[in-house]
């Protein structure tokens, strides 16, 4: 493990940014979001979650796929990839880092999505441990540890010191390049981090969502959940606005559309939401015609369908964004609590 005084963080950022684009939590117009760092910009590690999640870097809200030129009966097809860049996202939390393994399984599944794949190859994740997990956090429910986040490099900010632990080939290569900036953390540093982790653990133990349990969701019981009468009351307030799907680091529904640029047709993909009423609409009907069906789809996907296809792994990382952003205060923890009790009790 290496260390660097927090007061020298600017230098660290500048060194990273000299060869790779660097994205950090920065404040713009009152919103803290991952943005491109430039000299003089203040990184904001005081807020745990950025407005958007790390998913935006690998599966952006819109991206180009192809360009078509048509003349008469002829069509010319060209790939139209957005330019590639090597980049580093610094300040990713355990939950967001965990979301990438969930997305990887979808986008790497054959035939792999080469757009996502390219970005994953180009991108490096530096996580930061959460010194003070918040009351909307429940990443621990999914086996993630806010005190020991994943990524290519994990960072702890403790007692005016930045501790740096690289964990992957990519992380080692970056560390090698920046080596001159750091000092060995030594035994004392290791001890500080160990203590820091333990303190975080104590906070997690006192979180209101500490005991949220998915025990009743494991195994085959989920089809029973599909027919549960509780969906009716759960979905009642939902507006179908799709906010929860857009802020969610694991939601990955998308649409493919064409746009006439005036000199060719550009085909692009953009996020879509299973919460929208036209998502599954066809000329001859809609398999999910009611809000109940659409609401249920989002949660069944995360808690039943995805785990069924991926060895029991849930498609939620407990980041709590849907808790803070839903305009009617509906969220996955309410669904888990409500459906987790005996169905017919």
């Amino acid at each position, binding site marked *: 493990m290496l260390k660097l005084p927090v007061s020298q963080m600017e230098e660290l950022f500048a060194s990273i940014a000299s060869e790779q684009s660097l994205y950090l939590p920065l404040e713009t117009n009152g919103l803290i979001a991952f943005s491109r760092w430039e000299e003089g910009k203040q990184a904001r590690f005081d807020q745990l979650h950025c407005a958007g999640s790390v998913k935006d870097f690998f599966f952006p809200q819109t991206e180009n796929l192809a360009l078509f030129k048509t003349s008469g009966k002829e069509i010319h*097809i060209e790939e139209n990839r957005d330019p590639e860049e090597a980049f580093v996202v610094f300040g990713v939390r355990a939950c967001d880092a965990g979301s990438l393994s969930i997305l990887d399984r979808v986008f790497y599944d054959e035939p792999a999505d*080469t757009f996502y794949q390219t970005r994953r190859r180009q991108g490096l994740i530096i996580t930061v441990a959460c010194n003070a997990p918040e009351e909307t956090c429940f990443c621990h429910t999914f086996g993630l540890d806010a005190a020991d986040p994943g990524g290519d490099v994990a960072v702890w900010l403790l007692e005016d010191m930045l501790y740096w632990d690289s964990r992957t080939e990519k992380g080692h290569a970056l560390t090698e390049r920046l080596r001159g900036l750091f000092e060995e953390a030594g035994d004392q540093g290791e001890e500080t981090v160990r203590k820091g982790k333990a303190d975080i653990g104590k906070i997690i133990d006192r979180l209101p969502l500490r005991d949220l349990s998915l025990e009743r969701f494991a195994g085959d019981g989920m*089809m029973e959940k599909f027919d549960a009468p509780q969906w009716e009351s759960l979905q009642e307030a939902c507006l179908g606005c799709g906010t929860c799907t857009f802020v969610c680091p694991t939601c990955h529904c*998308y649409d493919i559309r064409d746009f006439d640029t005036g000199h060719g047709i550009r085909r692009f993909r953009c996020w879509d939401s299973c919460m929208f009423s036209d998502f*599954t609409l066809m000329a001859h009907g809609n398999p999910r015609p009611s809000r109940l069906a659409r609401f249920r789809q989002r949660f069944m*996907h995360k808690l039943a369908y995805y785990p069924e296809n991926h060895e029991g792994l849930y498609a939620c990382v407990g980041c709590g964004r849907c808790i803070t952003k839903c305009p009617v205060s509906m969220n996955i923890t309410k669904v888990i609590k409500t459906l987790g009790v005996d169905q017919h009790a």
Partner: protein
Amino acid sequence: MRSGETLIPVLGVVTEIRRETPDVKTFRVSAPGGGAVFPHMPGQCAMLSIPGVGEAMFSITTSPTTKAYMEFSIKQTGLLTDWLHGMEPGQQVAIRGPYGNAFPLETELKGKDLLFIAGGIGLAPLRAVILYVRHYRDNYGKVDLVYGARSKEDLVFYEEVSKDWASSEDMQVHLTIDRAQEGWEGNVGFVPDFVRSLDFSPKCSTLVCGPPIMIKLTLDALWGMGFDRTKTFTTMELKMKCGVGKCGRCNIGSKYVCKDGPVFRCDELAELPDEY
């Protein structure tokens, strides 16, 4: 440069267009240099698009034993299909695929007596299977086709079905239309009732394709006659975008119709939520 990215289509050329019914046309498509655009197995689908108009999934109605081209029989139902119906031979289209699974012709269905049941445009995917089975005729047992539509004019591939297939030693063809009409000597009535009247052995392997309501009633008829769900196959049709199980649009429970379907065995289907 091509990256092999599945979302990016390749070119196909429409070489022939046939009118099947008042609202169905069959389009023959080849690669620009000739030949099928890509290999496939019966039951699989392809995404066809006209840039700026739309993209949608269609079943491939020819068998892979036809090497020179692939065909799509398409019903006019909206923006894209209106456009396709208006095009002329020589038109290029953007195409990607093949997508989905196929009927298990080389495994579960091999050596079996086959009963095909189709309604309307539902014969399109089954035609691919029938052409394949006739090509490798010795690999299969008895073959029966029950096919129905609203009227005689709504039967797709009418010439081929009533002349080539009906007169061949290879198979038995049983046609029906919903209401009696001048010049029709075949059966009159709905497909499920017709199936009940025909006394097939419930030991057949059965392939059912058609509009959702026809599929549902036909399956009910089959279960009533003692047919086995594990030997009965049908296809599902849901809205699709990616074709590869990623865009999240076409799932029925944990299965994606674009990837795990469109062909489902009825015992597997019974396990899934009723969202189709």
